[in-house]
């Protein structure tokens, strides 16, 4: 099952203003300048407690039926998913191991065979369900802000 790119684009555009306002208030850079039906991606730059920067890509293909694929990339976006691009504190696959990351699901090569993609809005563990782009930005920022160093 998939979602037409036009529908995903509309859904992302509907949510981005709140995510962008949150990011701006939190001192994060959100770059959606290349967002289009052909490229359903936007980027957020986070900082850990040492001031090191990490560049997260949100690939929103099939959103909102399925969650985005969240991946850390290099600043020039030429390298992706390597240990050195990840902050400490995430799964060493490496992977942001939350229900809102499509990469975390076993059917996408991730560690979680116990999760169903259609249930991505459920809480990971306990607590609030991270079910909007702005909440994803908040959750990642909170986790990275408390971490120190890189995975590799």
């Amino acid at each position, binding site marked *: 099952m998939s979602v037409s790119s036009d529908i995903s684009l509309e859904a992302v555009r509907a949510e981005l203003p709140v995510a962008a306002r949150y990011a701006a208030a939190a001192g994060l850079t959100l770059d959606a300048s290349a967002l289009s039906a052909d490229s359903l991606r936007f980027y957020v730059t986070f900082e850990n407690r040492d001031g090191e920067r990490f560049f997260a890509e949100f690939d929103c293909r099939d959103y909102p039926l399925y969650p985005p694929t969240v991946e850390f990339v290099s600043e020039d976006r030429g390298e992706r998913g390597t240990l050195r691009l990840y902050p400490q504190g995430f799964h060493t696959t490496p992977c942001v191991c939350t229900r809102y990351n499509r990469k975390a699901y076993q059917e996408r090569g991730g560690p979680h065979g116990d999760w169903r993609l259609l249930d991505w809005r459920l809480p990971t563990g306990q607590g609030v369900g991270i079910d909007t782009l702005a909440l994803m930005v908040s959750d990642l920022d*909170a986790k990275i802000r408390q971490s120190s160093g890189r995975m590799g």
Partner: protein
Amino acid sequence: MSADKKEEAGPPVLTLRVQTPRGLWSMDEPKDADKRPQYAISTKIQQVINDARSVFKFVEEDSKYTLLLGKEVLVPERPLASYHLPDGTLLILSVQGGNA
């Protein structure tokens, strides 16, 4: 100003804005909010967190809710006055979910 007039004026009040992942909380947003971010400066940070959660219905107790001023985490037990915030300061309600 006389002591009587000071009493009439009441404790100093601070108006805040709080950006949350579900929207901005201010004196006019969201329209249907049942409370506004206007506080006596003796109010503890925890009360602001509780009120922002209430307005945006962050009801889950197991999540971590933090109030930030830029990158600075505000201590829940401290009063607003201890941060010397100017009127209209923008704070951030950070919401953190669980880990797998």
